[in-house]
C-alpha cells in the first residue's frame, strides 16, 4: 500500500500508457508487436537521454532551456572532429561530453553566483551555444566514418545501440536520483532552497552539478543523435527544450520542483512518442508544424492537470 502511494504518479502514468497502447493496438494493424515497441525506444532515445538530465534540473526547482542547443552543438562538434580532423570516435564523443558538461556547469555557476533566474541564464546560454555551434561549422555536417558507422548499426540482442543508451541513462538516472546522497540533495533543493541550506546541504555544489548533469545528458543526446542521423545537425535541436520539458512534466514531475522521478520521465517519453506517432503516421497528419502544435498542446494540458491535482492535494503552492 505504501509502495502504491509513494509511486502513485508513475503508476498512474504507466497505466495511462498501457491503456493508450491498447487503444492504438486495437485501432492500428500490427501495432502490438515487439519491433514496433523497440522502434519507439530507438526513435525517442535522443529525446529520452536529454529528458533524463532535464528531470534533475526540474526536480531541483530550476529549468534548462539550453538543452536543444547543447545537443545540436555536440552533434556538430562530433561531426567536425570526425570528418575534418579525423579524430577517433571515442575521443570525439569524449570531447563533446566534456564541452557539454562544462557549458552546463558554467550556467549553473552563473545562476548560483549571480542570482539571475535560471531561465534567463539558460536562455542566454541557448543562444550562446547555438552561436558556438555555428562558429565551429556553419552548416550541418554529414558523418561517414567506418568506426562511427559500426557503432551506429550495432545491436545488443534485438535492441539498436541508441535504445540501449536510452535505457542505460534511465537506469543510471533512477539510481542516482533515488539511491545516492546527490539525488536526495536535488529533491531537497527542489523542496525549498532555504530549508536545504539550513539543513547544511551543499546547495551551491548541488545546483551547479544539476546543470552540469543536464549539459552532460544533452551532449550525450547529441552523440546519440549523430548515431541516429549519421550527421551533426543544427536544426534537430530547435524546440528540443520544449519536448524535454513536456516529457518530464507528462511523467509527473512538478514544475515547482521537489516531486517527481526519472522513471516517470521514461514513461513520459514513451507516452509522447506514442501519441505523436499515432497522430502523425497513423492518423495521417504528417507535418512538422502540426507536430509542434500537438506537443505544445499536450504539455499545456498536463501542466493544467498538475495544477488542478496539486491544488487539491495542497502541495506545491502556486508561486
Amino acid at each position: 500500500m505504501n509502495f502504491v502511494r509513494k509511486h502513485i504518479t508513475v503508476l498512474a502514468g504507466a497505466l495511462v500508457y498501457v491503456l493508450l497502447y491498447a487503444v492504438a493496438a486495437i485501432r492500428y494493424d500490427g501495432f502490438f508487436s515487439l519491433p514496433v515497441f523497440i522502434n519507439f525506444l530507438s526513435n525517442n532515445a535522443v529525446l529520452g537521454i536529454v529528458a533524463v538530465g532535464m528531470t534533475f534540473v526540474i526536480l531541483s526547482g530550476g529549468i534548462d532551456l539550453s538543452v536543444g542547443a547543447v545537443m545540436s552543438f555536440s552533434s556538430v562538434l562530433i561531426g567536425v572532429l570526425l570528418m575534418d580532423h579525423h579524430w577517433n570516435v571515442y575521443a570525439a564523443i569524449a570531447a563533446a561530453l566534456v564541452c557539454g558538461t562544462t557549458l552546463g556547469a558554467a550556467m549553473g555557476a552563473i545562476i548560483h553566483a549571480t542570482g539571475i533566474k535560471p531561465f534567463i541564464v539558460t536562455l542566454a546560454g541557448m543562444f550562446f551555444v547555438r552561436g558556438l555551434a555555428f562558429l565551429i561549422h556553419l552548416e550541418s555536417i554529414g558523418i561517414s566514418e567506418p568506426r562511427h558507422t559500426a557503432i551506429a548499426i550495432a545491436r545488443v540482442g534485438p535492441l539498436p545501440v541508441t535504445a540501449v543508451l536510452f535505457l542505460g541513462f534511465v537506469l543510471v538516472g533512477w539510481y542516482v536520483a533515488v539511491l545516492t546522497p546527490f539525488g536526495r540533495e536535488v529533491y531537497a533543493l527542489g523542496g525549498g532552497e532555504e530549508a536545504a541550506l539550513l539543513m547544511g546541504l551543499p546547495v551551491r555544489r548541488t545546483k551547479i552539478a544539476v546543470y552540469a548533469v543536464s549539459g552532460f545528458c544533452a551532449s550525450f543526446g547529441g552523440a546519440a543523435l549523430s548515431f541516429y542521423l549519421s550527421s551533426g545537425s543544427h536544426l534537430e535541436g530547435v524546440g528540443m527544450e520544449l519536448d524535454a520539458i513536456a516529457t518530464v512534466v507528462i511523467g509527473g514531475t512538478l514544475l515547482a520542483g521537489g516531486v517527481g522521478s526519472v522513471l516517470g520521465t521514461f514513461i513520459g517519453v514513451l507516452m509522447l512518442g506514442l501519441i505523436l506517432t499515432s497522430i502523425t503516421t497513423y492518423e495521417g497528419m504528417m507535418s512538422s508544424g502540426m507536430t509542434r502544435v500537438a506537443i505544445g498542446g499536450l504539455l499545456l494540458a498536463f501542466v493544467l492537470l498538475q495544477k488542478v491535482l496539486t491544488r487539491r492535494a495542497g502541495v506545491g503552492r502556486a508561486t
Partner: protein
Amino acid sequence: MRARNFWPWVALGALFVFNLLFTPGFARLELRDGRLFGTLVDIFQNGAPVMLLAVGMTLVIALGGIDLSVGSVMALSGAVAALLMTEQGQPVPVAVLAALGMALGVGAFNGVLVAYGGIQPIIVTLVMLVMGRGLAQTLTQDQKIRFEVPAFEFIGNGTVLGLPFPLFLVAALALLVGLMLRKTAAGLYLEAMGSNPRAARLCGLRVHVIRLVAHMTCSVCAGLAGLVAAADIKEADVANAGLYLELDAILAVVLGGTSLTGGRANLVGSLIGATFIQTLTTMLQMRGVITEHTLIIKAAVALSVCFMQTPSFERLARRFRSAEAA
C-alpha cells in the same frame, strides 16, 4: 541623483562614437528621391521590429513576467496577412486587422493561462513559441509566401518626410503606451503589481485583468512587428521571420533599465536599448560577422547586463569602491 536613462544613453553614445571612429561609412547620409539613405537610417528601418517588440515586452517584464513567444507571433501575423492578401485576395486593411486579431488571440491565450491558470509565464510562452511557429507552418504548408501589394509594403518600407514609415509607427505606439503608463492609473497599477503582486491584490487591484491586458498588448506589438518585417521583404517566411528575436527584445528591455524582477517600466530606456542592439547588429554585419555568430556576442551582453542589475553585483561594486577608498 542621475538623470533617468543615464546609463542606457551612455552605452548607446559610446557605441555610436566607436562606430563613427572605427566603422567606415557609418555616418554617411544622402538624400535620394526625397528619402534619406545611410547606415543610421538603416538602423531605424531594420530595428523597427525589435523596437515594437521592446515596447510590448516592457509591460510584461514590468509585471515580473516574460514573453518568449513574440518571435513566433511575428511569423504568425506575417503569414496570416500574406495568406489573406494572396490566396484570399482580401484588401490590405482586412489582412492587417486579421493578422493583428490573430496576435491578440495569442496574447489572450497567454494571458489567460498565466493570470487565471496560474502557470509560469516561461512555460506558457515557451509553448506558444513552439506552437505559434508550428501553426504558421501549418497555415502556409511550409512555403514562403511572396506578395506584391504596394499599399501593404508601405508599412515596411514606405517613406514619410524622408524617413522610413516604421519609425513613425514605433513613435506612435511608444507614445500611446507611454501615455498609458505615465498619465493613467493603469500604469501605476502595472508597476505596483510588478513590485508586489500580493500587496497589489490585497489593495483591491484586479491583478488578473492587468496581467491579461499586458500579455495581449505585448502580442499585438509583436503582430505589428511581424507585419513590418514581412512588408519590408515582401514575403512571409515562417521559418525565419522573428527567429531569435525574443532574445533581442528581452535584451532591449533589460538594457533599458527595466528589471527582470518587475516593478519598473522604462519605455524610453527600452527604445534606447533596442536602438543599441540594432546598432550592434548592424555594426557586426558591416564588419563581416555572420548573423549566426552575433548570437554569441548578444548572449554575453544580455548576461552581463542582467548581472549588473542583481544585488550580488551591487555588493561587488561596493566592495570594489571601498577597496579603492582605502
